[in-house]
């Protein structure tokens, strides 16, 4: 009884392989070929080596190495790549995963513990993966009277909205998924969705704890949305643009945090509140309302919410970097790509390989990304820090802080920006431009 497949017959296995091949060919010709033609007709394709790319031609990169890198390079400049990999989802998810690990180790060191230790041999580096698999293998339990479609949709919407937020963050010159001219307003629009999702799922779950948690999420937005908006007005006044990339370009010489420290502080506090991190984690206050609006989520649904939360964390830290810390600006520290590899190729023993199309990324972009990541990680660490230092606050304290203190500070910040502008320190024709 200990055999893995007791009913195994070789002939049936071979027969099933043929079956499989048949179905693959059938599905490819019914679905794959139409897709190829749709791509040919509707999608803009690049010109590689003086030849227009087609999906058929794209297949030849395997046979012709000289085409490989140009094709990859041209792919990297498509919107799809940006969405899926570099400034978009993949990059953000990678940083988010790193953040989770760093948070656990960082917090553990602060609290005289060791943190994750065993999973993955080296300092528990694979702990996150283990947690992911654990969550995935857990049963999803949905309360009987819950509004099931909305409840299922909640985590997906949350991750999607976090992704939409990530789309607006410029990482390097020209490397941004979406670059609308009113990027900052788009950011505000996207941020506004998060409490709505919280309330929606809280309502759908039909539990008292989630309900109170959702209401608290709403109150938190009420308290901190206006300080958030007002604290960024100073940056917009000084840079004269709502486009995030242009705001970064305007900080080529000076970071706005040097002139608008009050705005930066207010914005940082509102970040903590929007992220529901520890001094302001009222919607998830576990000792009062179990887990707040997350109470009824189980298994991978909870995992998706966590993923969305950390994507959001990355996006907010990126936004802080973009608005106050000069984004990708920084001294050029990335070494230039060695010229002899481009001209002579790489020589390994007797073989010399030429790679046309190198370098894949230009130096400016790599340098910008480096600085952006360094600054963003710094901001993320700063966001993680209060968790080890502060206790949770109360809802009336949140509202009081938001309305009585932060709004006043935000107004002061606006007047500082106006003063700088009209005193001729900054702006066109100013002393420092």
């Amino acid at each position: 009884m200990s055999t893995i497949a007791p009913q195994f017959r070789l002939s049936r296995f071979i027969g099933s392989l043929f079956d499989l091949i048949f179905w693959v060919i059938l599905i490819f010709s019914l679905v794959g070929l139409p897709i190829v033609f749709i791509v040919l007709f509707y999608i803009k394709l690049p010109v590689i080596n003086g030849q227009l790319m087609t999906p058929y031609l794209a297949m030849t990169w395997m046979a012709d190495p000289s085409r490989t890198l140009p094709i990859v390079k041209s792919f990297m400049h498509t919107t799809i790549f940006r969405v899926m990999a570099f400034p978009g989802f993949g990059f953000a998810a990678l940083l988010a995963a790193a953040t989770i690990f760093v948070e656990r180790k960082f917090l553990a060191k602060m609290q005289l513990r060791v943190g994750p230790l065993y999973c993955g041999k080296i300092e528990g580096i694979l702990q996150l993966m283990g947690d992911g698999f654990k969550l995935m293998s857990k049963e999803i339990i949905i309360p009987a009277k819950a509004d099931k479609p909305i409840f299922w949709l909640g985590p997906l919407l949350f991750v999607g909205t976090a992704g939409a937020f990530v789309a607006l963050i410029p990482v390097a010159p020209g490397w941004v998924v979406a670059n609308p001219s009113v990027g900052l307003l788009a950011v505000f629009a996207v941020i506004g969705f998060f409490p709505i999702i919280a309330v929606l799922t809280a309502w759908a779950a039909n539990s008292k704890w989630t309900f109170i948690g959702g209401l608290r999420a709403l109150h938190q937005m009420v308290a901190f949305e206006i300080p958030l908006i007002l604290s960024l007005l100073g940056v917009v006044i000084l840079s004269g643009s709502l486009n995030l990339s242009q705001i970064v370009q305007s900080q080529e010489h000076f970071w706005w945090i040097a002139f608008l420290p009050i705005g930066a502080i207010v914005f940082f506090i509102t970040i903590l509140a929007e992220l529901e991190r520890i001094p302001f984690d009222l919607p998830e206050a576990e000792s009062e309302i179990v887990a707040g609006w997350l109470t009824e989520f189980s298994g991978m649904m909870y995992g998706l919410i966590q993923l969305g939360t950390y994507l959001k964390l990355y996006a907010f830290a990126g936004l802080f970097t973009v608005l106050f810390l000069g984004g990708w600006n920084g001294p050029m520290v990335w070494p230039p790509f060695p010229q002899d590899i481009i001209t002579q190729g790489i020589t390994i023993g007797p073989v010399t390989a030429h790679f046309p199309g190198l370098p894949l990324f230009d130096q400016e972009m790599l340098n910008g990304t480096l600085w952006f990541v360094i600054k963003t990680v710094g901001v993320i660490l700063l966001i993680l820090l209060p968790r080890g230092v502060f206790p949770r606050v109360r809802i009336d304290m949140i509202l009081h802080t938001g309305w009585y203190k932060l709004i006043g500070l935000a107004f002061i910040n606006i007047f500082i920006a106006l003063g700088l502008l009209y005193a001729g320190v900054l702006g066109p024709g100013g002393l420092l431009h």
Partner: protein
Amino acid sequence: MTTQLPPGMHIETVDEKIMTLNVGPQHPGSGHMRLIIKVDGDYIVSCDPDPGYVHRGEEKMAEYRNYIQNIPHLERPVIHDSSNILYPYCLGVEELLGIEVPERAKYIRVIAAELNRCIYILYWLAIYGIFLGHSTMFMWPAGDRELFIDLLEAMSGARVTHAYLVPGGVRNDLPSNFEERCLRQVEYFEKRLREYEAIFYQNPLLKARTEGSGILSRTDAIRLGTTGSVLRASGVDFDVRKKEPYDVYENLDFQTIVMKEGDSYARSRIPYLEMFESCRIIKDALKKMPKSGSVRTKLKPNPKGGNDEVYRRVESGRGAIGYYIVSNNRPEPYRVKISVGSFRNLICMPYLLKGEKLGNMPAVYWGLNYWPVEADR
């Protein structure tokens, strides 16, 4: 009544929009107990505590076992403070049987009781920290408990349930080299305590949150018969160790910590400050302890109490613990009643939580120094 309903709010008018919340027994903000809380929005309009989820009838069980057999199971209600909950039992049985305790044993008992008090308060403080969302304050005391657990393990051989105090003295003598080790660890611990002050008690957010919440006035504290840190936080200078000194507490140098405010912050700070006093007591007792001598008066096997009754009490981490033991000339006690501080402080809960914000519930609840397992016995 100190905390009224907020202005403009009457129970009759808000009746239909009241939501009933069951806080506990499976709730991260409750112990093994239930608070049936009715909330109107963010305000609690009524609270009905429902303990008893861990009621085991320790008092009934004690009637079936003889005086020595009772020792291990009578410490079960609060294993983190096991020396202190056994202390009045030992005192009571000694009074019933008319036994004198050797001088050295008295000092060892005091040291064990104070070490155990620190263990309990650290555990309590850890949970107070995590109830307020301060995870560092959970990890630090939980880690520093090990210092005292190690010391008590060296003394008694067990890490948590020591059963170290017995009628007639203590179970065994101190191990060799204990004094230096104890002094070293206690002095290190005092350094750590000052760090707690910096990260927790002087934290502006903590102060803003707990100061002025759940105020219990001096008159109410007396009228409700509260005890321990709750009583002393309301300005009543009462500590059984000072008022009715048992064993050698009258020879030792310590103070009673009293605060006037009576709010949640004061209730959380009193046990913390008492740990300094505990350290002082331990150091003083180590100095004054006779360096050698017997540590236990031998009892007759299976001793019988007379037709008598005693009521003895000590100060534990949660307030006075009183044992009322009735004996009827048999090896087993006829009736054992344990009056614990947690059960006496339970009465404050409906009293203080009414009119309080829901966000204050954990701070007020845990500030009462209420240990559900002990209250249920």
